């Protein structure tokens, strides 16, 4: 037992715990005066529920051997596809999007789970094809491998999470050592596709692949001044909230933008604005520091992993985390368009919290099992016995 405990990455756990507590505190501040809540702590309790399930998952995962997932890659992939397809069909519609499957006691956001499933499936897929790194054909296969679930998510519609899938793909193939030329090709193709979707199709063929609100979010981002729509209002209120925090913030629970309801979605998408307003530059830096620590440990785990598979899993986790942090915080600061991506560990939403705790669990698993000698276990079929301590 003590060996197990000794092989956990405690720094990572501490940073994660720090982020989770930070998140609970900020959710309390943002929602305690909410008129629609049944009690000041309603949201905090709801989040805690997700927390508990996530922590259990984290512990379980850190105990099991992640290499298991390598064998299950295919099944995980099709399970993902299946869930996503199901969501499109029987998902409950909220605000014009089908993202949730409602079960008796809670709602499942399949795209969130999809992130984990993709990381695991793609890691297995790429590790399996490790010798085909030079093959463009294989690379394109990988692209399609990811594009399929991504498209299903895009159709919900959920552009933000679809882009997370792209981020996962990019991080993982990068670490997988894709040929630079292939990567450049893919980048070029992406730019071309974006141009087609945003310009050519609408103007020449009249085909709008993006919904109006999605387009609006992009235009507001590019041109904030002219717009008086809701998207522009959100953006402007967020900037006011962040900037008015100044160096030390207005004080915990003292944010006027938040408590006077100027800032919408202050406990979900824009929770960082609350942090920036109430805790100022100092508080914001502390938060970013915590994220940086988590990422640093993830990079370390990636490099320590003796198998490509483990490295890829870590890379996938890095991709999700870094992308979402950058997009969410960037959005609140006005340097990224408004998306629905939550801030990992902090935003209210038990699905998201669970998923990130699961990712941390996977990282722990990779960390633990990269020192299999300590753990003493051996998997059949392979000689990496020389995993010296």
């Amino acid at each position, binding site marked *: 037992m003590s060996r197990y405990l000794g092989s956990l990455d405690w720094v990572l756990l501490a940073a994660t715990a720090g982020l989770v507590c930070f998140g609970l505190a900020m959710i309390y501040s943002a929602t305690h005066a909410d008129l629609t809540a049944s009690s000041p702590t309603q949201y905090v309790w709801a989040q805690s529920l997700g927390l508990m399930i996530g922590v259990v998952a984290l512990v379980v995962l850190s105990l099991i051997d992640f*290499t298991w997932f*390598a064998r299950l890659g295919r099944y995980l992939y099709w399970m993902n596809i299946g869930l996503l397809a199901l969501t499109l069909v029987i998902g409950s519609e909220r605000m014009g999007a089908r993202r949730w499957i409602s079960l008796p006691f809670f709602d499942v956001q399949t795209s969130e789970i999809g992130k984990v499933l993709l990381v695991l499936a793609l890691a*297995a897929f790429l*590790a*399996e*094809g*490790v*010798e085909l*790194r*030079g093959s463009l054909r294989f690379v394109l296969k990988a692209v399609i491998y990811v594009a399929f679930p991504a498209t299903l998510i895009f159709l919900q519609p959920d552009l933000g999470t679809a882009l997370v899938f792209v981020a996962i793909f990019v*991080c993982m193939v*990068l*670490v*997988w*050592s894709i040929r630079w030329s292939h990567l450049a090709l893919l980048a070029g193709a992406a730019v071309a596709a974006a141009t087609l979707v945003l310009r050519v199709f609408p103007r020449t063929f009249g085909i709008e692949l993006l919904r109006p609100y999605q387009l609006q979010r992009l235009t507001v981002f590019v041109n904030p001044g002219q717009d008086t729509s809701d998207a522009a209002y959100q953006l402007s209120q967020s*900037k*006011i*909230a*962040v*900037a*008015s*925090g*100044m*160096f030390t913030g207005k004080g915990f629970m003292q944010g*006027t*933008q938040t*408590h*006077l*309801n*100027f800032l919408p979605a202050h406990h979900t998408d824009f929770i960082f604005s609350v942090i*920036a307003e109430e805790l*100022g*530059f100092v508080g*914001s*830096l502390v938060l*970013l520091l915590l*994220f*940086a620590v988590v*990422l640093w440990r993830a*990079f370390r785990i*990636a*490099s320590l992993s*003796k*198998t*490509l*598979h483990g*490295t890829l899993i870590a*890379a996938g986790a*890095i991709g999700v985390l*870094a992308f979402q942090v*950058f997009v969410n*915080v*960037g959005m609140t*600061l*006005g*340097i990224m368009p408004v998306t629905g991506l939550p801030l990992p560990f902090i935003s209210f939403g038990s699905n998201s919290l669970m998923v990130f705790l699961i990712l941390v669990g996977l990282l722990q698993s990779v960390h633990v099992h990269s020192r299999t000698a300590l753990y003493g276990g051996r998997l059949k*079929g*392979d000689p*990496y016995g020389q995993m010296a301590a």
Partner: protein
Amino acid sequence: MYLEPVRRRRLPGEDRSAGMRLAILATAVLLLFAVLVFRLWFLQILSGDQFAAQADNQRLRTVLIQAPRGVIYDRNGSPLVTNRAGLSVGILPMDLRSPETVIPHLAAVLGIPAEDIRAKLDTAGQDEYRVVTIRQDVPENPVVSYLLEHSLEFPGVRVEKSYLREYPNKILATHILGYVGEASYEDLQKEQFQTLKGGAVIGKDGVEAVHDSMLRGVVGTRTVEVDAAGVPKRVIQENQPTPGSNLVLTIDSGLQAVARAAVVDGIARAHADGFVNSYAGVIVALDPRSGEILAMTSYPDYDPSLWVGGMSTETYQNLIDPAQHNPLFDRATKGLYPAASTFKPFVAATALRSDLIDWTQIFSDPGTFTRDQQVWRDWLLQGHGDVNLVQALAESCDVYFYNLGSRFYDLKGPVLQDGLREFGFGQRTGIDLPGEYPGQVPDSEWKKKNGKTEIDRIWKPGDDINLSIGQGDLLVTPLQLAIALAAIANGGDILVPRVARQITDASGNVTKQIETEVKSHVDIGAEDLDAIRRGLKMVTSDPTGTAYGAFRGFPIAVAGKTGTAQKKPGDDYAWFMGYAPADAPEILVVALIEQGGHGSSIAAPAVRKVLEAYFRTESSGPAQVEVTE
């Protein structure tokens, strides 16, 4: 196989590539974080202040608390203008959402056109943080209760308590009191209103305007914190308003009412006499020792409470309709008329002072006067015979004064006009009411400038002759006449007339007493002055006097003068001016009935009515007075 360690199975040429790739990825992530940190620095440290100000702007609202306006009293402490509490509905542009639905809905509830609301919001300009008053004096039931109950449907709409003017006597001294209204954009540019903000209520006419800075007090402010829906959450700061000072006028409201009734009565008498075009009249009553106005009425007038809460276009159009004969116009200070025979005492005084004649000199009046083959008639066809100054005044002998005019002409200079101007004609009296007209005393200069034809520009003997009986291009206001006569009554002082007596604070303590002001002095010899006074006294006391019939039976000696002015193409205008008691004057009254016919029969009885009320005499004048002048 896919689980084989990286080390063992590396593709050629990609040594430790995973490690390098990780390093590249790490650098990229680091860059992203750096971007975030720099952006945070930019927003929070470099631009923090301006955004903080924006945050404050959004959440703080400063509301003005109206100060109660000072009360206006008459000289006896009886209130003429008071305040009552009312509710006004306004819009705070910053909180207004979905105007396309809210504005029409609000318009329907208030019962006004939606364009009016939009127009008001447009003229309010850029200031989004100040409430634009849409309608004052809105009834609590049902309008305000509805708005408050359905406040969620009216984001940005505010109901505020305000003070509104109330007039206990309804229509009394309307033009003196004036009215209040919202300051217009042009008003706010004026110096005395510089400290005020849009939506402030200011006096627009009468003493409300002249003494506005005393009456209006100082607005208070209340700063509240509001949420994103504009709902006030808590009060941050509050400054109480300072109530306005009260104003005590020189007016006696009892006498004022009598004066108004006397004008109405005079017009009725005129109609009875066949002068059916008479619709308007003026009475000015003042104290000739101090210039205090005891009563001043211009008829027709109107109910000033029509202005309260904003006058509708319909009402206004009705008031300025010619058929209403201009109730908004103050004829006492702005009405311009030929003085006619009421001018004679001043012509006489000027003649005496310039040593043109002496009062004992006799002129012969056969009924006409001839000069240069032109003939001027006396109102009395057969003439008055031989008269001196005293008799000429008493009987209002025109020919006597034609003679004076002719002599004045021969002096070849504006001697007559200068003398008349010394009595205040052709200039403003300086009364503390706005917009007074100076009238005009024509002379050769004036004719040169204003004559329409070649001949018109020459000053002829006829001009001086006409001027001497108060006709020609002469124009005076009833107030000017009163001040000029007061000089005769008080021994030569040209006083500045006034309606304000005192300023008092909310507890009634006098903070300012307004003193008598003597503008100038007319030097006239004692004997000469005495002659004029005797002539005026005889007007009412001697059977030859033109107002003898009108004042028969009046127990107190009145010195005065009748006048019947020609103002073609209308009927003659009836004048009478007089003061009493003749030997120790306390009150001086001037009455004018437009197109009323004869001064003796129509204007004189009106003056008598006022004097009766003042002296509280039992007697009342005859129902019908025979016509003299």
